[in-house]
């Protein structure tokens, strides 16, 4: 036992990595979390820019709220969204329960505060000097703000990468809203890497769990590497 178990799992896992079934699940994970990231970016960026560049009463409250939302556990999101998405629930008519799109929407909500928090912080850290510099150089308010956003691009990229990684490695929403459905050749499948790893571990089918785990780690590390390269290039 001890290490044999794990070593054997790993050696079998390596053979499973190019299994079409494993690839299908990996691709679904990237797709579901990719869409989640796109959705979250689409609505978070404009709001974050406003938050980062404009001063208004109660701004600290909004920021506290966003930071607080970052701490909501994914099972709580899963529970709340389940209650919202069940067909007889308030949002049931959208038909999102046990669908890929349902997971995407859930993950998008989960990562929204992450994106907003990072973007707002990076805008604020740059704002003072750049804006003043731009203004003294004769730019108007709008052009100065635009300059600030441009200078914060590194932070925005970081936010997107962090959000995608958070989404793809998330289990609670994927399991409770997706349901880990898999039928060979199925159109309505919702099994993703995290739910599959959870299931195979419970079923003690450890090699395939390890294979999926290696892929998940691979994706997360690759995206991180990409993010570092991008940021290096930006400097």
């Amino acid at each position, binding site marked *: 036992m001890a290490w044999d178990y794990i070593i054997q799992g790993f050696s079998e896992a390596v053979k499973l990595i190019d299994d079409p079934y494993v690839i299908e699940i990996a*691709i*679904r994970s*990237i*797709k579901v979390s*990719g*869409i989640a*990231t*796109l959705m979250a*970016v689409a609505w978070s960026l404009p709001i974050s820019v406003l938050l980062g560049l404009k001063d208004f009463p109660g701004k600290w409250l909004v920021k506290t709220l966003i930071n607080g939302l970052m701490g909501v556990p994914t099972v709580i999101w899963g529970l709340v969204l389940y209650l919202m998405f*069940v*067909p*007889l*629930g308030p949002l*049931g008519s959208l038909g999102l*329960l*046990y669908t890929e799109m349902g997971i995407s929407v859930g993950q998008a909500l989960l990562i929204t505060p992450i994106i907003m928090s990072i973007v707002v912080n990076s805008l604020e850290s740059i704002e003072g000097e750049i804006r003043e510099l731009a203004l003294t150089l004769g730019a108007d308010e709008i052009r100065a703000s635009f*300059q600030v956003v*441009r*200078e914060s*691009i*590194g932070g*925005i*990229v970081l936010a*997107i990468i962090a959000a*995608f990684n958070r989404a793809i490695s998330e289990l609670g929403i994927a399991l409770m809203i997706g*349901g880990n*459905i*898999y*039928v*060979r*050749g*199925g*159109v*309505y499948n919702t099994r993703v890497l995290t739910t599959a790893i959870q299931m195979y571990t*419970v*079923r*003690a*089918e450890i090699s395939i769990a390890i294979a999926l785990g290696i892929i998940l780690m691979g994706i997360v590390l690759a995206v991180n590497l990409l993010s570092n390269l*991008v940021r290096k*290039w*930006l*400097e």
Partner: protein
Amino acid sequence: MIAVNKGANTLVLLVLLLAGLSYGCIGSTNGTQTATEKPKVLTISTTTSLYDTGILENVIAPIFKEKYNIELRFIPKGTGGAILDAKSGASDAILVHALPKEQAFMEEGYGVNRKVFAYNFFVIVGPKDDPAGIRGLSVSEALKKIVEYGRAHPDKIVWVSRDDGSGTNTKEIALWKNAGFDFNELKNESWFGTTGSGMGNTLLYTSERKAYTISDIGTYLKYQKEGKINLDVLVDKGEELINVYAIIIINPKKIPGKDFEGAMLLAQWLTSDEGQKAIAEYGKDEFGRPLFYPAVPVLKNQQGDVFKWIIKYGFMKDGDKYTECPEKFRYQPKYDFFEFPASVVEG
């Protein structure tokens, strides 16, 4: 300035990359969807004991899809969770094995057209050396011994319960009651462990702790054969251990928008010769015995102990008859249901 432009371009590039990736994937699924007509989908809430054996995903779903172009989405939860899903409108039918809960579900108006399709047996499993000495005893005797042994060893987990509102858990509670114990009181004793999760998980934990538990034979055989657990079947005799699986269709009058016809198709296929054969064959090659037995042939033959047990533990009393679905819970008259005079069971 140049650096800034480069940054903006990179952002655009990254978003495009993500978009392309996502679009590519959507595009490819769209491709397969248009190539073959997009199948209809049925959402079936199911007990984990059926699901964990793999019969639903590996046998029933593929055959059903090929035959009717209907995709089955199985959501494994305990019977309690399956019923919650059904009540919230998430499922078209439920596969369950807990007669009292099924009856309540139907009384509340959520379920119609219940069909019994399979059975097997619950078993009490435990470590090979059987420290409590229950091997071969009757269920009640065995449970009494376990309580005795447990109370003498309060520092270790002796019994593991799913405690998840599942059909197996419902049966367990009834068996404790038969043996003269109250499940809710036992739960507070230190030797009595609970997992709150599915059959497979619970077996793994029980094996790890060298404890005892109750399992459906299907999940036990699969896990034991695959070397995941090291537990022996210690008690498998007693009519009260019979485990009857039924499908209940969601009442279209109570919950609109569900696919009643499609769900009936599944119920009829499960009880058809073809469906019954698929059930009887599953696991035979791999485990040397089937994990589930088809119920319809037994009900047709009307002979033997098992026939009586299915009626007694898996049928509902309706006046002077036992039936798989009492008349008031039937929707549309065109379907057949098994029913037998009460004398079959009560002598």
